[in-house]
C-alpha cells in the first residue's frame, strides 16, 4: 500500500469530522464562537493541504510492501472483542465480563498454559474488584441481566 494513501484516508475522515463541527457553529452564541471558529478554519486549511499533498504524492509514490492486511486481521477482531467486553459489562456486571474477556483474549492471543490462563483471569479480576470497591470506594458496573458481587 502507498503511504500517502493512508494520509489521504485520514484527511477525508478529518474533513468529515470538521464538517460535523462546522454544522454546529451557527448554534453557538457569537460571544463563544470566535476562538473555536479560528481553530476550525486553521484545521480545515491544514486538512485540505494534507489531502491535496497526499493525492499529489500518490501519483509519484511507488507501492511499498506493508503488513497492513495482516495487522488488520489481528487487531480488528481484538477491537471487536473489547467492544463486546465493554457492552457486556453493563449487562452481566464487571466480574463476569472481565473474567470472560480475559479468557477470550488469552486464548485469542494463543497463550498455551491453561492453568495460567484460568488462574490469571479469575485472580486478577477479583483482586481488582476488591481493590476498587473496598479501598478506592468505586462501585464497578453492575449487570442488568445478572450480577456477581461480593
Amino acid at each position, binding site marked *: 500500500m502507498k503511504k500517502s494513501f493512508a494520509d489521504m484516508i485520514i484527511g477525508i475522515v478529518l474533513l468529515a469530522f470538521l464538517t460535523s463541527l462546522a454544522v454546529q457553529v451557527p448554534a453557538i452564541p457569537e460571544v463563544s464562537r470566535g476562538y473555536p471558529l479560528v481553530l476550525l478554519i486553521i484545521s480545515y486549511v*491544514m486538512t485540505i493541504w494534507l489531502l491535496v499533498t497526499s493525492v499529489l504524492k500518490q501519483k509519484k509514490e511507488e507501492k511499498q510492501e506493508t503488513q497492513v492486511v495482516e495487522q488488520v486481521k489481528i487487531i480488528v477482531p481484538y477491537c471487536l472483542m473489547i467492544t463486546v467486553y465493554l457492552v457486556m459489562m453493563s449487562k452481566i456486571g464487571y466480574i463476569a465480563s472481565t473474567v470472560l474477556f480475559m479468557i477470550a483474549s488469552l486464548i485469542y492471543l494463543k497463550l498455551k498454559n491453561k492453568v495460567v490462563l484460568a488462574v490469571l483471569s479469575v485472580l*486478577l479480576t477479583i483482586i481488582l474488584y476488591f481493590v476498587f470497591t473496598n479501598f478506592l470506594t468505586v462501585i464497578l458496573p453492575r449487570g442488568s441481566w445478572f450480577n456477581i458481587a461480593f
Partner: protein
Amino acid sequence: MENIMLGFSNVFQLSNLLVCIGGLFVGVLFGALPGFSATMAVAIFVPFTYVMEPGAALLLLSALYCGGVFGGSIPAVLVGIPGTPASAPTALEGKALVKRGEAGRALNLVTLASCFGGFVSSAALLVCAPLLAKIAKMVGQPEQMFVAIFGLSVVVMLSQENLFKGLMVAFVSLLLATFGQDPVEGFPRFTYGLSQLTGGFSVVPVLIGLFSLPEVFKMLEDPLGKMAESGKVGSLKLKLTDITHNMFNAIRSTIIGVCIGIIPAAGPDIAAFLCYNEAKKASREPEKFGNGSPEGIVAAEAGNNGVTGGSLIPLLTLGIPGSAPAAIFLGAMIIHGVRPGPTLFTQHAETVYTMIIGFALINILMYFVGMFFCKCGSLILVIPKSVLATVIVVLAVVGTFATNKNMFDVYVMFGAGIIGYLMLRNDFPTSPVALALLLGTNMEKSMSLTRTMYEGELWMVFSRPLAAALAVFTVFSFVFPLVKMAGDRKKKQAEQEHKGE
C-alpha cells in the same frame, strides 16, 4: 524551612513510604518491559490516586515516573534492547560489558548513576522551583496567555520529524478542548446533543487510551513473542575506580540533565545522548566508548535521570508540562485540586514540599529496588506478550471507569486508543494531543480575559515586562527549531553532494 520540615514528616509516614516503594516496583517493571514506558505507568495509575491524599498521590506518580525512566536501562544492559529511547547509549555500552561477562557490574553502575542523577535533580527542584515561583507571582492573564502558547510551542520541538502533522494534531486537539462549556461565558459547544459532552472531554481517559492501548495493539502484531532472550547477570560488584573515576562525569551529566529537563520537550533521550557525547569528548579513553565504557553508562544514566526533577520545575512553577509524563502529572494535580503555578508554593506548600522531599527519597530507595530488579531482571523479560496485552486492557478499562464512574469515559478511552494507534502507524505524533487538551482551556480563557482587559489596545500587553519577555521566548521557541531544522537539512544536502562528488 517549616514547609520543608513538614514535607519530611509527611514523606516518612509509613503509608507514604509504602506508596513510594510500591510505585517504584511498578514503575521499574513498566520501564523494563520494552514498548512500555514511564508515561504509560503514570497514565494507567492516575485513577488509583483518586482516593489518596494529594501528597501521597503525587508521591506515587513520582515513584512511577522515576522508576519508569530507570527501568528502561535493565533490558538495555541485559538484552541490548533499550526499554526507553533514553537508554539507547546504555544499551550500546551495556552490550559490550555483557559480552565480557560483566553484566552485573554494568547494572550496578546503571543503578548508582541513575539514583545519583535523580537525587541531585530533586535537590535542584527544591532550590530552583520556589525561586522561579516568586518570579511567576507577577503572572497575570496576559502572561498566562503567553505561558500557554509557550507551552504549546513544545509541539514544534516534539514534532521536528514531521512538523506539519504535529501542528495539525495540535490544532485539531485544541478544537477538541473547546468541546463542552465556554470557559468564560459557560455556553455549551460541540456537544452533538450528548449530555456527557456538556463538560467536554475528560483529559485522563483520553491520556490513558492514547498512551496505553497503542502499545497493546503493537504487541498484537506478534502476540507469540516473548519480550526478549536475556543474558546472565553475574556478580553485581563494582570496582573502586568505577566510582572514583566517574564522580566528575556524574556531576557534569546530572547538571546537563537538569538543564535539559527544564527546557520544554527536551526529554531524557536528548539528555542521555548529549551527556554521553560530552563524556566521550572529556574522556581520557574515548576509544573505549562503544566497547563497554563505564563512563558512557554513567553519563547517559545520570543525564537521563537528571531530567526527571528538572522537567517538573516549569510544571510546578508555570504550569507548563514539558513532556508527556509531565502533562499527565498536570492532569492528576488538577484532579486533586493542586493547580500548578505561581501560587502553588504558598497555597499548597505542604503537598508540594511532600512531593519534592519524596522525590529525593524515591531516588535513594530506587537504588535498593533497582538492585532487586537487577538480580531478577531477566525474569521480567520472559512474560508473554499475550498476558501483558490482556492485563493492560483490563487495567486501562477499570482505571478509566474509576475516573468519573461512567462508561462513557471508557468508550472515549477506547476510541482514543484506536486513534492513537492509527496516529502512531501513520507518523502523527500523539504528545501534542495531551498538551493541547491540557493547555487549551486555559489558553482560551486567558486570551478572552486579556482581550477584555485591553479592548482596542491589544498592543499594550507588551508594556508589561514579563508578558513581553514571555512573548519573545514564545517567538524564539517557535522559530529556533525551524531554523535548526533548516540548518540540518542544508547540512545533509551538503553531505550528500559531497558524497556524490
